[in-house]
C-alpha cells in the first residue's frame, strides 16, 4: 500500500459513522411502519406481533454467529490438518 494513498470513501471514519447512522434510522423507520400498518393476511399469529421479522432477524443473526463461535473449537483445525493424508 502506498503511504500517501488517501483513505477511500468507505474507509473514512465519518462516512462509516454516517452509514451506520443511516442504517439505524432506516431500521427505526421500519419498526415504526409496524405501528401504522398491519399485515392483512397473516398465516400465523406470531406474524402479528410487533415488528416480528425485525426482532426475529436480529435475534436469529446473533444466535447463528454465537453458534458459529461455539462450533469453532470443535471443528476448527490447523490449515495443514489434511496435508499428506487427505
Amino acid at each position, binding site marked *: *500500500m502506498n503511504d500517501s494513498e488517501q483513505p*477511500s470513501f*468507505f*474507509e473514512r471514519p465519518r462516512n462509516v459513522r454516517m452509514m*451506520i447512522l443511516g*442504517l*439505524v434510522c*432506516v*431500521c427505526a423507520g*421500519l*419498526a415504526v*411502519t*409496524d405501528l401504522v*400498518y398491519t*399485515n*392483512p*393476511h397473516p*398465516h*400465523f399469529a*406470531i*406474524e402479528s406481533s410487533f*415488528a*416480528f*421479522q*425485525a*426482532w*426475529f*432477524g*436480529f*435475534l*436469529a*443473526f*446473533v*444466535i*447463528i*454467529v*454465537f*453458534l*458459529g*463461535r461455539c*462450533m*469453532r473449537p470443535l*471443528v*476448527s*483445525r*490447523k*490449515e*495443514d*490438518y*489434511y496435508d499428506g*493424508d*487427505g
Partner: protein
Amino acid sequence: MTAMADLPPGWIMVLGGVLLPFVHKRFQAWAVLGLSIASAALFITTPAGEYGNIHLLGNDLTMVRIDPLSRPFGLVFHLAAIVSAIYALHVRDTRQHMAAVMYAGAAIGAACAGDLMTLFVFWELTALTSVFLVWASKNESSYRAGMRYLIIQVGSGVLLLSGAIMQYDVTGSLRFDSFVGDGGMASLADLSWPGRLVLAAFGIKCAFPLMHNWLQDSYPKATVTGTVFLSAFTTKLAIYALARGFAGLEPLIVIGCVMTMFPIVFAVIENDLRRVLAYSLNNQLGFMVVGIGIGTELAINGTVAHAFCHIIYKSLLFMSVGAVLFRVGTAKATELGGLHKSMPWTTGFCMIGAGAISGFPLLSGFVSKSMILSAAGEQHLLWVWVVLLIASAGVMEHSGIKIPFFAFFAHDSGKRPAEAPSNMLIAMGIAASGCIGIGIAYPLLYALLPHPVDYHPYTVTHVVTQLQLLLYAMLAFVFLVRIGWYPEEKRAEVLDTDWVYRKWLPAWIVRLANSVSTIDRALRSAGSKVITLFLQKTELYFGETGFFGGTWSTNTMAFWATLLLGTSLLVYYL
C-alpha cells in the same frame, strides 16, 4: 428440424467438446461460447413435446421431453453455459474447455431426458466430465478431492441405474415420472424400492445432509473458471430430478430444513470464501428441497423460480470471488480486504449478487424465495416457515455480508490487484443484469414456470417484512462487530463429514491392520515356540542319548524282563 429435435438437447455441446482438440488453442474458448449459443438457439426454437422415441433392447426410450418443468431448467442451463464460457474466454487449456462444454451439454441432456436410462447416461456423463474441472487445478490436493468427488458421483449413478432396472422389472417401463403418485403428501413408506434407490441417487447429487460434503470438498479446489461451471449444473440437475420424481414427498421438507440450517453455521467460521459459497449453495438447495417436499403448485413454482435465479446469482458470486482468486492468488478472508479500491467493478457486481441471494427487493432472490416461504405459510407449516426465516437471516450473514465485506472492505490487506479481465467483467455484468432484470421484470420469469402463477411478490407486507428481516440482521452484524463478538477470521481447516473418510476411516483401517498384524505376529511366535519345544523334547527323548532312543544295557533289559515276568506270575496266582 424434427431430426435435430430427436437428438438430446445439448448434443451440440457434447459432440463439439469431443471435436474441440482439433480447433486451434487460441479459438477453443470462443468455440465453447459458439457451441453454447448454437445449442441455446436450437433449444429455444424446439417446441415443447417428446422426441427421440427409440426402441432399444426391448425397451421404449424417450430421449427428449421438453415440457413446462424441463424448459426453464434447459433455458437457465444454457444461459449459465454462455455466461461461464464468456468468463473463461482467457483460459488456454484444452482439457478444461472440453470438460466444461461437455459437462454443460450433458446436464442439459439430463434435464430433458424422458426416461430413466437416458437420464442415467447423462447423469454419469456430468460426473465424468466435471471431475476434470477439479483436476485441472493440477495439484495433489485437487487430485485427491477429484477422486473422492468421482467416487461419490459415480456411486450416485450406480444407485440410479439400480433403481431404473428395478423400476423396469416392477412396472415394465423406464419412463421418468413421479414416484410419489398424485394423492397429496407422501411418506417414505409409500415409496417403492426402486423409488427409494432413485431418491438416494438424487439425494447424493443434491447434497442432502450427511451426503453433502463432496460439494464443499471439491468445488473450492477446482480452477477459477471451473468452479463457476460446477456451481451451475450438478446440484440444480438434482433439484430438477427431485421436482420431477418426488414432488410432495413429505420427508423432503425436514431434509430441506436441515439443509438450510447447518451450512450457515459452518459458513460463519469458514475462512476460504469459495468454501463459504459452497456452504451457501448447500443452504440455497435446502430452500428448493423444502419447496419440492411441500409439493403444491405454488411451492413447485417457487422451487423452479428459485433454482433459475439461484444459478444466476450464485454464478455471479463465484465469478466475483474467482476474479479475486485470479488476481490475488487466494480466496482466503484472512488474506483479503480493501480490494474495493482497485477492483471497484468486481466489488459492485459481488454486492449485487450478495443482495440477490439475500433476497433484497428489486433483485432476483426476492421474487423467488418469497414464493417458497408463502407456500409454507399457505400450508400452515409454522415450524418450516420459522426455519426458513432463520435460514434467510443466515444467508444474509454469510453471502450478504461476509463475502463482500471480508473480500472487498474490512481491514485493508494492502493488496492492490488490477481489476478483473474484461471478459470476466462482461460475464459478471450479464449475470448482475440478470439479477436486477428478474427482480424487476419478474412476470417474465413467472411466465416460464410449470404451473399458472397467481402470485404478487411486491405487496407492502412482503417488502416491509423482508426489509425488516434483512436490515435488522445487518444491524445485528454492526452491533456484534462493534462489541467485538463477531468471530475474527482465522486461518484454519474446518472439519466436516469428509473427516470421516479422510481421517477417521483411514486411521481406523490402519489401527485394524496393526491389530491384525500384532495378533498374527503373536500367533506365529507362539506357534514357532511350541514347534521348537516339541523338536527339542523329541530330540531329548528320542535322540541317540535320549531315554527312548538310546541303547539300553543288557542288565537293565534283563532286570525289567524279570520284573515283568514276576509281576504277571503274581497276578496269575492271585
